[in-house]
C-alpha cells in the first residue's frame, strides 16, 4: 500500500544542511499498521510528512498504492491534495472557526473528495458514529475536550475512506488515562476498517500495543523493523534495546569457554558470562551484552552452582506497585533488575543476581 525507497531529506539552516532523513526504505502491506518509533529529532515526523506530501524529499521514491507520488529522478511530485491519504495531526488541527460537522464535512465539500450534498450529511454522520461523536455534530469545535477533538480529527481523516491513514503522534496531547483508552479504541477501529496505517510516535508502549510492525528510527535511519515481539525480545541494536523497554548493557570480549562449557563465554566487568552466540560473532570480538531488568533474577542467598550469577549489594530500591525496581552494584558495574513486589528485600542487602543465559542478547559492539 505504501512503499518508501531510499528517502532523503535535509533542512537548510544558516549553518548549512542538516540531514533529517538519511535514506530510509520501508513498505506497508494492505491493511498493515506500521509504527515509526523513535526519539524526537529522529526523522520520523519528517518521513510521515514526506509521505503526506507536506514536505518535499530531496531524493528517493514514494509509492502510494501502486502510484508513484514522488520520484526524484522523473520529477514526479504529487501535491498533498491529490494523494488521497487521511491524516491525524499531533495538535488535531481542528479548525476552531467551524463546528464539528463542518470540520468533518470539509473534505467532502471544499476538499478533493467532493460528494453530492445529500451524501455529505450521511457520510459525516457515519464517520462521527465511527468515533462515537454523533451527538456532538453541531457544537463549535473549540468547545470540545481534547479527546473529543482527537475523535473529530480522526473522523475527518476517515470520512473520505482514504487508502492510507497517517497518524502523527495523535495521542501525545492526551492525559495518561485517556491515552490508554484511545489507544485501544484506535486499534479496534483500524482493525475493523482494515485500513493501512502509518503511525508515528516516540512512546514505545503505544507502538507495542498498536502496531503490526514497528520500525525503530534514530538519527534519520531505520535501525530495526519487525513485529512488536521481535523488536522487544530480539533487539538487533543497543539503541533499539534501550529505547524499547529498559535494558542493561555490558561490554566484553568473546573468550573460549571454560569449566565444561562448550560455548564461548564473554569476559565482562561482572565476570565471565555464558550466552548464546550467533555464528557470525567470532572469538576475540568486542561485543555488547544486552539483557532486560525483568529477566534478572535476584536471590537473597548464595546460588554458587548456577551460571551467570554474581554477588552484589542493593544500592537503591524503588517500589512500583506491581514490582520492585532495584539497582544493584556488583563490582564496578551497576545493574538494573526487577523483582516481585512481595519480595522482602532491603537497601544495602547482599544479594546474588542471576542472568539467565537464554535472555542475554549478544550484539556486536558499535
Amino acid at each position, binding site marked *: 500500500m505504501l512503499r518508501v525507497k531510499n528517502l532523503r531529506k535535509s533542512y537548510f539552516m544558516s549553518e548549512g544542511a542538516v540531514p533529517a532523513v538519511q535514506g530510509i526504505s520501508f513498505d506497508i502491506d494492505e491493511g498493515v499498521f506500521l509504527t515509526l518509533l523513535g526519539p524526537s529529532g529522529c526523522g520520523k515526523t519528517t518521513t510521515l510528512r514526506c509521505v503526506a506530501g507536506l514536505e518535499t524529499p530531496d531524493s528517493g521514491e514514494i509509492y502510494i498504492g501502486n502510484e508513484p507520488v514522488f520520484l526524484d529522478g522523473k520529477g514526479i511530485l504529487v501535491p498533498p491534495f491529490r494523494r488521497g491519504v487521511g491524516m491525524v495531526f499531533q495538535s488535531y488541527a481542528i479548525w476552531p472557526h467551524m463546528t464539528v460537522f463542518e470540520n468533518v464535512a*470539509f473534505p467532502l465539500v471544499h476538499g478533493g473528495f467532493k460528494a453530492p450534498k445529500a451524501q455529505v450529511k450521511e457520510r459525516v454522520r457515519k464517520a462521527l458514529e465511527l468515533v462515537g461523536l454523533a451527538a456532538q455534530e453541531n457544537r463549535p469545535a473549540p468547545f470540545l475536550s481534547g479527546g473529543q477533538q482527537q475523535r473529530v480529527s480522526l473522523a475527518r481523516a476517515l470520512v473520505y475512506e482514504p487508502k492510507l491513514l497517517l497518524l502523527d503522534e495523535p495521542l501525545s496531547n492526551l492525559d495518561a488515562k485517556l491515552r490508554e483508552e484511545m489507544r485501544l479504541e484506535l486499534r479496534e477501529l483500524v482493525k475493523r476498517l482494515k485500513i493501512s496505517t502509518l503511525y508515528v510516535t516516540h512512546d514505545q508502549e503505544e507502538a507495542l500495543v498498536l502496531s503490526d510492525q514497528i520500525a525503530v528510527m534514530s538519527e534519520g535511519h531505520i535501525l530495526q523493523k519487525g513485529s512488536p515481539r521481535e523488536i522487544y525480545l530480539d533487539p538487533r541494536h543497543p539503541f533499539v534495546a534501550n529505547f524499547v523497554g529498559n535494558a542493561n548493557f555490558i561490554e566484553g570480549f568473546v573468550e573460549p569457554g571454560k569449566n565444561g562449557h562448550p560455548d564461548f563465554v564473554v569476559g565482562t566487568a561482572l565476570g565471565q558470562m555464558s550466552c548464546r552466540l550467533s555464528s557470525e560473532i567470532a572469538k576475540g570480538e568486542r561485543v555488547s551484552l544486552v539483557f532486560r531488568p525483568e529477566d534478572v533474577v535476584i536471590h537473597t542467598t548464595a546460588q554458587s552452582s548456577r551460571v551467570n550469577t554474581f554477588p552484589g549489594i542493593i544500592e537503591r530500591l524503588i517500589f512500583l506497585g506491581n514490582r520492585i525496581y532495584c539497582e544493584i552494584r556488583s563490582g564496578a558495574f551497576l545493574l538494573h533488575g526487577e523483582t516481585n513486589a512481595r519480595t522482602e528485600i532491603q537497601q544495602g542487602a547482599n544479594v546474588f543476581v542471576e542472568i539467565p543465559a537464554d535472555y542475554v542478547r549478544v550484539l556486536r559492539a558499535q
Partner: protein
Amino acid sequence: MEKVADVSLSSSGVQAAKSLREIISGNSIAVFFAWAACAVILLLTTLILWMSFSRGLPFESGFSPDNYAEVFGSEHFWTVVLNTVGVGLGTVAISIFFGVPLAWLLNRTDIPMRSLFITMLAVTVIMPGLVKAMGWIMLLSPQVGLLNRLVMGIFRLREAPFDINSLWGISFIQGLMLTPSMFFLISGPMRSLDSALEEAAEVVGANRLKIIVWITSPMLWPAILGGIIYIFMTAIAMFEVAGLLGGLSENRILATEIFLAVQPFEGSSEIKYGVAGVYGLLIMAPSLFALFFYFQSLKQAHRYAVITGKGYKPKDFPLGSLRYPAILFVLFYLALAVFLPFAVLLWASLLPSLRMPSVEALSLVSFKWYSEIHYLLGGFDVMRNTLLLVVGSSALVLFFSFMISWVVVRTKLRTRRLVDTISMLPHAIPGIGFAFALLIAGIMTAKWFPWVPFYNTVWIIIAGNVLNRLSYATRITNAALIQVQQELEDAALICGARKWVSMLRVMMPLIRPSLVFAGLWTALLVFREVSMALLLIGPKNKVLATQLWILWRQGDLSQASALSIVLILITGLLILVVQRATGKIGEPRSLPQLGGGG
C-alpha cells in the same frame, strides 16, 4: 516536538531547486501577487531615486548630483538632521510612555470599559493633526496658552513656563498622536502572550511589578522594538505638527524641508522634486537602518515564540486596588489626546471663527456650520469617490498584505526575506514621495497607455494609499499568520483542498480578527490621508479628506471643524457597528485560539 524544529529550521531559505518545486506545489498565487506588489514598490522607489538625481522632471533631464550638493551643502544640514532625530526619539519616548502601559492595561487586565476606550483610541486617528496642534497652542502658547497663564498665575511667574513652539512641543504632540499606533502594534502580541508564563512567575513568588518588568516586558521586546521603529519612521516623516510649531523657521526638520522643497513658492511653478527626493532618501536612510534592527529582532523572535499552543487561555491580570490609578492613567491619556482636541474641534465648530474661550465668545455659539454640512461634504461624487477609495484601498491592502505575509510566513522560499524587506520599504518613504512618483508614473501611463484609466482617477489615489499602508498591514498579517499552526493548513491540504481553497476557507477565517482590524485601521488612515491625495486629485477624483483640508487651508477653520466633528461621529459609529458585527475587536477574548488544540 520535531514540529518546533521544522519551523525554526526552515527559517532561512532553501535550495533553488526546492523553491521551484514549492512554487509548483501551490504557492504560486501568493508568490505572484506578493512579487507584483514588490515590483511596483521597487519601480516607484527607483523613480524617487531617479528624481533625486535630476534637476527638473525625471524624464526630461539627465543625471546630476546638484540636488545632493544643495542638500548636503546647506549650512543647516546637521541642524536639520539632529532636530529630526531628536523629534523622532522624543515622539517615540512619549508614545512608549503612554502606549505600552495602555496596551497592557486594555489587553491583559480586568480594567473596565475596554471596548469603549479602544474605540476612542481608534477614532483619534481621524482627528486632523492640525486641530490637535491648534488645541495645544491654545493651551501652551507662551503668549495666550491657558495652561501657561494658569501656571504663571499660581507661581507668579513672569515668563511662560512652557513653549509649545519647540522640538519638545512637536515631540509631545506627535507622541500623543502616534500612541494609538504603538498601542495597536503591540496589542496583538500582548494578547497572545501565554499567561501561563506569567503565572509561572507568580508561583515562584515574584510580585506583580516584577512580573511585568522581568517576564512580560522581555517577552514583548520584539513587538515593542518593532513599534519603536515604526513610530520613529512615522514621526520623522510627519509634517503637520512641525509645520505649525516652528518647523518652517528655527525648529527645522527633514519633513518641513521636504514641504518647502515641494511647495512651489507662490508665483512660480518650479517645484524642487529632486531636492525633495534627496530629503526623502534622507528619511529613508535611518529608516532602513532601523529596519535592519527590526529584522534582527525578528530573527530572534522564535526565542519568544510563546504564541499559541494548547491550553492557551488569555487570563486577565487582576488589578485589585491598582484599578483606580489605572483608570486614571487611561483617562489622562484620553484627556490629552482625545477629549482636548475634540473639545477644541467642537468649540471651533460652534463659532463663526476661532476665538479663545471667553464670555463674549460664548455668546457667538451657534450650529450654523452644521446646517451647511451637505455643502461641506462636497456632493455625491465626492462621497462615491471616498467610498471607493476607502473600501478599495482597504480591500487591496488586505489582499496584498495577506499574499505577502503568506510568502513570508508560510513558505520556505529563499526570497521571502527579500519580500518582507521590500514590503517594509514603503514605510520608509514619505507618502508625498510616493505621490510624486505616482504622479510621474501616472503621466507616463497616460502617455504610453492612454487607454488605461489611471491618471486622474480614484485608482491613482488608491495606488498611493495601498503602497503607503502596505507595511503596517503586513506587520499585522505576518503576526497573525505566524500564530496559526502549520498543521491547521496542512490538514486542509490533506483533506484534498487546493492551496487557494485552504487560504480562503481555512486561513482567512482563522485570522479574521486580525484582518478586520487591519482593514479598519487602513480604512481610517486612508480616509484621513490628504497629502498624497492633494497631489493626485483632478476634476473627477475628489475625496472627502481633500475637501476638509481645503477648508482648513483657506481659513475656514470653523466649517472644517464642524465637518470633522460629523466625520468623527460617523466613523466612531461605524467602528462600533463593525465591532458588533465581527466580534469585538477590542475584546481580548475575541482572539481565536489559533492552535488546533483545546
